[in-house]
């Protein structure tokens, strides 16, 4: 370890370790508790206490790291993990502003989600296990954002995948949950395979996994352009997998099969943030590959519009939120494609807070109405659950981009970044997407809370304090965090400059006004459709029935993948297995054995068993050999 490290840097590597320790403690105590105490439930609270303590300590340490970064600009420390011949693989952390921001987000959201989960998951059969995976998940994500080399990052990246697998499949006794977990792991795994190839390609060219060293070498132009491009593309595909970009988005809506707080965590802070973070972190080499940047932008744009359209027609509240997440992730990617790291990270944070809020709110909603998720079967719940309703509105409005909530600022920043890039077509389409996102946010916020209460929901009531307190905290932040974009005092020159000193805080009044107008139109439209029923939603959907049906069926992409997996890959696998058994095994292997057996059947008739045959053969053979011997001798 280097010696000139500040205290913040040392605090940073403790953060993931705390969660890791929590994971181990819970896992081992789970068995011990069962072993020593017949009544496990009495000690069930041990698990959340351990894991929340760890993450809370992490959150406190975050402030230490933040102060440090504000003053000293971060740094890195590492230790050797594996030395093989010329390759030295190190475990190390690297603290800069992006990673600090991410640590803050991850620890904070995890903390709130875990607290919330105490109430939400009470009485579950695997209560302790749930918190253990949470701790593991937090460890992985924190490691990921701190990693200073690509391999270590990949290490954490895969553990994030594992965490999501375990959490999505937490209720594994449900077939759909098991399938969703599998789908999430396999889909992201496809990205991971590409990511690993990209990382190793870069290693082959540079001889190091260290991110900043790779940047140095890449910037000096020592990497072959084609290889640089392909490895950057491969890394981006990895990011697409984790961040659910088109066409890898299919796993995210299915991930709803996990407990709702898990969705909040995955959508807001951990899993999907990883891809955006990776691209932001690797931005220096992305910038060396402008073609790939274009691809990033296009993929982001497609995802943004495409997921937005699906969010607009879904009926399941969690699915709407899921597609909205995909859509916003697309927006972040789009922004990253234009080089706007600061804006993308800022939106990641704002969106994370708001989305956590929305999911926890949705969870609170579902908790009190016996896990109903169809928004059309809800209604008028704002009176029954006022806190949930208000906080939900704040979150939705923030994502819709209503000033002065945080989403307004971040969206503004994103649009600015896109505009700077000079792609006006892209900018126009982005505006369309912004409009869409405001519209579906209006829909998801209005339908459950307005209108008349269905009969079966008459008994619904506000959730307990352990559930609504996190909601309130998140709502407050969601409203307030946007002001971080502005320069605050001397140490903090505004977000853009904080992340990248070359950038400066700027504002374009016409753009602000444009986005406000768009948002307002969308909200009014939503209000008139879903509350005033001026226009029937059904009529609109009948307008182009095929389009509606297509969108409702998720553009048939899920079906297509299912078909590819079931029909193509599995069939191919079965064919190979059949080939192995029939051709290689039965024909070649057993065939050669059988052909020997069959030829033995033919030749065995020479063994008559009669003395005569053997004797004659012997006599003639002996004479023949003697003659042969003479012939050879002469």
């Amino acid at each position, binding site marked *: 370890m280097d010696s000139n490290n500040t205290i913040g840097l040392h605090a940073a590597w403790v953060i993931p370790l705390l969660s890791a320790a929590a994971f181990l403690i819970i896992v081992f105590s789970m068995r011990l508790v069962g072993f020593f105490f017949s009544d496990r439930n009495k000690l069930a609270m041990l698990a959340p206490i351990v894991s929340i303590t760890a993450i809370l300590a992490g959150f406190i340490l975050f402030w230490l790291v933040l102060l440090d970064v504000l003053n000293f600009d971060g740094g890195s420390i590492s230790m050797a993990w594996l030395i093989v011949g010329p390759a030295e693989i190190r475990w190390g952390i690297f603290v800069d502003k992006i990673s600090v921001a991410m640590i803050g987000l991850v620890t904070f959201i995890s903390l709130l989600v875990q607290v919330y989960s105490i109430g939400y998951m009470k009485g579950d059969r695997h209560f302790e296990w749930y918190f253990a995976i949470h701790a593991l998940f937090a460890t992985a994500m924190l490691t990921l954002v701190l990693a200073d080399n690509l391999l270590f990052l990949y290490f954490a990246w895969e553990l994030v995948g594992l965490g999501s697998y375990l959490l999505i499949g937490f209720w594994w006794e449900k077939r759909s949950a098991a399938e969703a977990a599998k789908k999430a792991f396999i889909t992201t795994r496809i990205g991971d395979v590409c990511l690993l190839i990209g990382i190793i390609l870069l290693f082959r060219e540079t001889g190091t996994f260290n991110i900043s060293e790779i940047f140095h070498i890449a910037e000096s132009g020592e990497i072959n352009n084609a290889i640089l491009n392909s490895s950057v593309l491969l890394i981006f595909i990895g990011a697409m997998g984790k961040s659910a970009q088109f066409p890898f988005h299919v796993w995210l809506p299915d991930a709803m099969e996990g407990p709702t707080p898990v969705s909040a965590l995955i959508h807001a802070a951990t899993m999907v943030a990883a891809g955006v973070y990776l691209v932001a972190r690797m931005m220096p080499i992305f910038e060396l590959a402008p073609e790939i940047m274009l691809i990033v932008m296009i993929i982001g744009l497609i995802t943004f519009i495409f997921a937005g359209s699906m969010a607009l027609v879904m009926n399941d509240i969690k699915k709407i939120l899921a597609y909205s997440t995909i859509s916003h992730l697309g927006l972040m990617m789009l922004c990253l494609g234009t080089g706007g790291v600061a804006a993308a990270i800022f939106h990641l944070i704002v969106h994370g807070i708001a989305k956590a809020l929305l999911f926890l709110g949705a969870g609170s909603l579902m908790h009190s109405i016996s896990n109903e998720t169809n928004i059309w079967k809800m209604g008028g719940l704002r009176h029954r659950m006022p806190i949930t309703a208000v906080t939900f509105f704040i979150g939705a409005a923030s994502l819709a981009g209503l000033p002065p909530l945080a989403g307004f600022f971040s969206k503004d920043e994103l649009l600015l970044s896109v505009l700077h890039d000079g792609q006006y077509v892209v900018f126009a389409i982005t505006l369309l997407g912004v409009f869409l996102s405001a519209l579906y946010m209006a829909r998801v916020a209005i339908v459950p809370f307005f209108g008349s209460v269905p009969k079966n929901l008459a008994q619904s009531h506000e959730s307990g304090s352990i559930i609504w307190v996190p909601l309130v905290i998140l709502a407050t932040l969601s409203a307030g965090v946007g002001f971080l974009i502005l320069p605050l005092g001397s140490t903090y020159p505004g977000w853009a400059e904080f992340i990248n000193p070359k950038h400066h805080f700027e504002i374009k009044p016409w753009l602000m006004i444009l986005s406000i107008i768009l948002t307002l139109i969308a909200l009014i439209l939503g209000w008139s459709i879903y509350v005033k029923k001026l226009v029937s939603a059904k009529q609109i959907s009948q307008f182009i029935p095929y389009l509606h049906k297509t969108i409702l069926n998720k553009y048939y992409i899920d079906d297509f993948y299912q078909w590819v997996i079931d029909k193509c890959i599995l069939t191919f696998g079965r064919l190979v*297995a059949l080939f192995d058994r029939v051709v290689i*095994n039965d024909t070649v292997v057993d065939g050669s054995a059988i052909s020997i057996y069959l030829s033995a059947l033919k030749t065995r008739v020479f063994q008559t068993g009669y003395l005569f045959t053997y004797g004659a053969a012997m006599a003639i053979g002996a004479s023949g050999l003697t003659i042969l011997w003479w012939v050879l001798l002469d």
Partner: protein
Amino acid sequence: MNTFNSWLLFIIILIPLIGAASLIFIPKEQKNWIQWIATTLGFITMVLSIYAFAAYSHDAGGFQFANSWVWLELPSNPLFGQQAIELNLGIDGISAPMIMLTGIVMFTGILASRSIQESHKEFFVLYFLLISGVFGVFASLDLFFLFFFYELSVLPMYLLIGIWGSSTDFKTFIRTKEYGAMKLMLYLVAGSVLIWISILAIFTESGLGTFSIPALAKVGFDTTFQLIVFPLVTLGFGILAGLWPFHTWSPDGHVAAPTAVSMVHAGVLMKLGAYGIIRVGLFLLPEGAEQWAPVLLGLGTVNVIYGALSALGQRDLKYVIGYSSVSHMGYVLMGIATLNVIGLSGAVLQMFSHGIMTALFFVVVGVIYERTHTRDIEVLEGIAKHMGWVAVLFLIAGLTSLGLPGLSGFVAELLVFIGLFQTYPIAGILGIIGAGITAIYILRLVAKVFFGKLNEKVWNSLLDNKFSKQPDSNYWERASSVVLAITILIVGLFPFPFMEVINTGVNEILASMAGSL
């Protein structure tokens, strides 16, 4: 301590033999005695083998714990002079982890075979013979004894599978235990014929009149000779390592074999093949290796992809694992074919990692099979509800298999990939894709068999009455699988001490190769 060290390997080989000999004299009826003796001796051997690894000094390098005993004086002749066949023992950085692997797998195998119903005594006698042979191969520095122990380890397999195995009817085809045993036997004997031919060829060609590997390594054989003999060696040992297309004995053998034998078979025996390729092929015939490496690499790549795809199409749990072994041994072959430090180290670590992982797989599948008498993926569903330990441990093995970081498989495969990318990037990409396919079949299997809703009616009809009280694995099986799981975790998280040792061995082999080229 020095005398102890110089006798250590001999003792490690001897203890199983003593075990086999002493079990013969214990009456059949004393099941407890037999089990306890087997467990104790197994434990002692495991401890000694771990000690052999831990005490191997990577600073000193070379062959350690070396000792030799003259076995047969060859008659003096003008060609070779006065020479002798010696029992020449010693381990280097490559065989040390293999010795430890054998120790661990063997001991866990004994723990897992407590449930064997019939002919306890004979089972353990043969098992110990097999183990002694395996230790002997890894510890021999003498081609003659390498072959001798190789045969010793191969032959008991036939009886172990043929007697204690299980036959299965797969509707469209039937695999009897006799078939599996016979096929395995014929394949391995075919392999050993090739090996024996090449050993004799090396012996004669060297003109030294000795079988000692270190002495032969200094010879520097003629290039043409190397080109001819290397494929023989590789094919002979490759059959044992599951080299495509000579792999079919392995899945069928697994399906037929009882748990402990499957563990040793996939965990250790297949490693004998890869080890032989390194020890005889690379060490003695470097030029041949250099020339034939692309072919070996190609076959290894086929192994990886083909094995993974075949595993995807299987319905039987043991077949899935059998083909996954084929696939994973492909990584070993690929790593060997890179002929560079990283790839070769990765291959050796993969041998270790796969040995432990697949042993874990077989313990767990053995438990499932014993409880439910089926291994059909289509029939089993949601069994995690009653088999928590089994599910968790299977998941650990599965995640190791698909290369999850933090588990041993990742480190090994990563090194193989890095090594591959230095020489053959395309093969590297295919290898990584193979790891992706592995994820698909493992996760499908886990989701199907362990997760989902358990149909209690089906479950009750499947479950053997003996286990209705405790369907989950019993303490012995748990102990066995937990030992393996912990080994996986240790190697995955702290590979440094392992790599130090492996690296010494690999560096020496590569240095000797570079020296002779």
